[in-house]
């Protein structure tokens, strides 16, 4: 077994026992990247020298007796997390040469735990997409079938973890952007409660929905990374000042007596039978572990896509106004005057999906349309939240599919935005309601593609979520099946 195949927890244990150094581990990952990146295309930029220096530093620290939950662990970061001195592109030409003078809070926190950052992962442009195909630079592959998408928008993060390039990654989830690629790539992805993780230094897509979270190879690793990044940050007014639980403690607890809600609206006619079978198997697994299964309803779920595709673009249209060519980022140098500079800079700098969403959002906020669109959507958002509140009276955790189907071929839905938007139907409500959500591998399709299971819990019940996720992982008991790519290359 190569070091790059280890989980974070395994690697940290080996390094603590001096059986492995961070330098060896990091080199193993860098070699793996060298072998696979031409096919995987997970990274927009790589910082191998920096990573090796950080690894050597970690080894020195460990030798000196210093700890750190991620000391010496090679990770990737979605390329919308600001990294001081390292380009942060958001997958967009408009930020192609942008080098932030500051670290995101989560990057500071990872560094404080000793993590080794290897590179910045590919993503849909400004996180707008479900396949990472709107990335201006690279389209990552699904390691289980490299002609398939890795999902999105944190597709590079998921692909890099699933293909053994790094041991873990941070992504961001605005409508499923962590959970969906995790599900399509056969790994664990967690979206924390809104306000649990600081958004400072996360380049905003939709501020009221965005949340940073981990992508890892198992639930235990997700708990480790969550422990590192969660907590109040005075630089983010929407972060919540509330103690962070010890997530590891939840893992060892069983699910005896836990009420698992099955929301019937998530199992409608459009659902792929293999996905349905996989999720229902998950229900059985938890039931046989002692959980109670309850039938629940989230009646307003059918409005999620409409609500999401008004609120998220509305916020995005404002959040992306700053890319005007004035102070930083791309500018059309040939522009004749101010108005021309704005128009040309933004026309050339943004890709078609970003432009589409800016237009939708601008429209939804326009005078005369605001009440019918943005305001109405905000009201329905409250109804969706109320649905969940009602559900929490009956159950502790909701179980559902993550996506209606396993991964699809690259290019298949790129020209059909509506089909693309509808593929997010099961993940959007989590963000609209601000809830924590977790995607755990549940099985494989007959075609050999991974299928994930989604768990959702009340606000700040991350511990509960990890506990159920861990039990699900144990019960489903997938052998650590390496993607074919892992052995082939």
């Amino acid at each position: 077994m190569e070091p790059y195949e280890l989980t974070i927890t395994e690697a940290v244990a080996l390094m603590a026992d001096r059986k492995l150094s961070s330098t060896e581990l990091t080199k193993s990952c860098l070699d793996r990247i060298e072998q696979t990146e031409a096919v995987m295309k997970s990274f927009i930029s790589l910082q191998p020298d920096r990573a090796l220096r950080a690894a050597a530093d970690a080894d020195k620290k460990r030798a000196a007796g210093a700890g750190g939950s991620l000391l010496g662990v090679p990770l990737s970061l979605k390329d919308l997390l600001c990294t001081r001195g390292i380009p942060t592109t958001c997958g967009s030409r408009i930020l192609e040469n942008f080098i932030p003078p500051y670290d995101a809070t989560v990057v500071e926190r990872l560094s404080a735990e000793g993590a080794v950052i290897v590179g910045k992962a590919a993503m849909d442009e400004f996180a707008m997409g479900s396949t990472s195909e709107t990335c201006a630079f690279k389209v990552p592959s699904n390691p289980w079938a490299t002609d398939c998408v890795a999902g999105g928008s944190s597709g590079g993060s998921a692909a890099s973890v699933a293909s053994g390039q790094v041991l873990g990654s941070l992504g961001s989830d605005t409508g499923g952007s962590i959970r969906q690629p995790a599900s399509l790539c056969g790994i664990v992805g967690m979206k924390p409660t809104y306000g649990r993780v600081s958004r400072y230094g996360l380049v905003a897509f939709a501020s009221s929905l965005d949340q940073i979270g981990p992508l890892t190879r198992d639930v235990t690793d997700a708990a480790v990374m969550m422990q590192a990044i969660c907590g109040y940050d005075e630089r983010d007014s929407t972060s919540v000042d509330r103690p962070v639980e010890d997530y590891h403690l939840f893992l060892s607890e069983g699910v005896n007596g836990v009420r698992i809600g099955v929301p019937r609206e998530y199992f409608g006619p459009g659902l792929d039978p293999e996905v349905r079978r996989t999720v229902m198997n998950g229900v059985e697994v938890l039931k046989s572990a002692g959980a109670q299964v309850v039938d629940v309803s989230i009646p307003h779920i059918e409005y999620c896509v409409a609500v999401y595709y008004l609120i998220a673009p509305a916020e995005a249209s404002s959040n992306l106004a700053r890319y005007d060519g004035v102070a930083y980022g791309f500018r059309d140098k040939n522009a004749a005057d101010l108005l021309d500079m704005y128009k040309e800079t933004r026309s050339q700098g943004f890709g078609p999906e970003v432009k589409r969403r800016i237009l939708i959002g601008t429209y939804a906020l326009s005078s005369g349309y605001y009440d019918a669109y943005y305001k109405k959507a905000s009201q329905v958002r409250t109804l969706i939240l109320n649905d969940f509140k009602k559900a929490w009276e009956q159950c502790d955790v909701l179980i559902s599919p993550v996506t209606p189907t396993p991964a699809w071929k690259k290019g298949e839905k790129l020209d059909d935005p509506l089909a693309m938007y509808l593929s997010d139907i099961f993940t959007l409500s989590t963000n609209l309601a601000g809830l924590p959500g977790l995607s755990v591998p549940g099985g494989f399709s007959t075609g050999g593609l991974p299928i994930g299971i989604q768990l959702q819990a009340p606000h700040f019940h991350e511990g509960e979520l990890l506990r159920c996720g861990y039990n699900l992982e144990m019960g489903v008991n997938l052998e650590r099946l390496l993607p074919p790519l892992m052995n082939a290359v």
Partner: protein
Amino acid sequence: MEFETVIGLEIHAQMKTRSKIFCGCTTEFGAPPNTHTCPVCLGMPGALPVLNRRVVEFAIKVGLSTNSRINRVNQFARKNYFYPDLPKGYQTSQFDRPIIENGFIDIEVDGGLKRIGITRIHMEEDAGKLIHDEREPVSYVDLNRTGTPLLEIVSEPDMRSPQEAYSYLKKIHAILRYLDVCDGNMQEGSFRCDANISLRPFGQKEFGTRTELKNMNSFRNVQAALEYEVRRQRDLLLEGEPVIQQTMLWNPDTGRTEPMRGKEDAHDYRYFPCPDLIPVEIDEAWIDALRASLPELPDQRRQRFIDAFGLPEYDAVILTESKELADYFEAAVAVYDQPKKVSNWMMTELLRELKGGEIGDCRVQPLQLASLLKMIEAGTISGKIAKSVFIDMLDSGKDPEWIVKDKNLLQVSDESELLALVKEIIAANPGQVDEYRGGKTKVMGFFIGQLMQKTRGKANPKLANELFNKELWG
């Protein structure tokens, strides 16, 4: 036809907080461009705003001082538009849930009081500045001012004359200065005012078409611009021409309002609640603490000046219009307990010589003015000499005693010295003596004038009168 003027004012007041509204950068003026900036006020990707609590406190204080409702929950909103001095592409402001609503202040009008409604007061961030280089076809952006906290104070269209608008503006200015929440410097732009103005036939309920006036950077300019605009609109209406709804710029050089150049497109700012800032919640304890900390306000001080110092209302209004002026008055009265005399001197000599400037820039300190007034009372110098001494004091900042001594301006009150001169004058002007004795008492003015000439104005006028009387009749 006679028209009624309808005016509403929008005031933008920069808050005197040490740091900006959403970041820790200093609000100081005068630094090299783009040095008082950080990722937050530069609008860099991923940077997030954190509300400066002091700004909320200042807003609450202004709300409490304008009889307004403090909204216990209020919210920031984004006002979206593109301009190079606005790095985020939106201004973080407040829209449908401002912090303050439904207030009023009373202004003095023709000896009475008039109530002017305040629609709303909200918190927002200032934009940066563009610097245009005349020699090159480029403009530079300085973002030092970006994020400086502003309060926007919007009045009801309750003012019926430029004079009322002037009084309202002065009163708001005074309140902000008394609260010490704003510098109030119109020239430097820390206190700015736009006006909406329309005319309608007396008796008509509906408002006429309004214009918006901008670029008025002094109190006098506001009044002058409004007066000009009243005339302009009245002339149009009398000619049967329509008033066009547009933004007009006041040109202080020509003394006219001119339509703003460029296309006047109706902006759609696409306001929506700012998702990066949670609603501002204000509890009663916070409000109570701020209420308890309020200083004496202009209205209270004006009343005290009337009650405690016996000043006429007119004096009290003028003296309390500016906190510094009122402080000056009280400092002078503290050492020279003749309030009316101090007031008279300040209202005439001092304010005239300030020529609309700030009392803070005046080189004559209150104690020096008090000394000057004491010298008049003691007969050391005449009132007339005192006025020239005062001019000297303004120029040099020197004490009146020093100036009087240095220029040998002591009043001549020595009877024998004056008597000799009186006798000389009588002897030299027999004709005028005869006239006077013949009943032309006005000739006394001639004699006094002669004496003043000989003493270079220093003769004690009361004594001079007595001496002439005695000599001419005696």
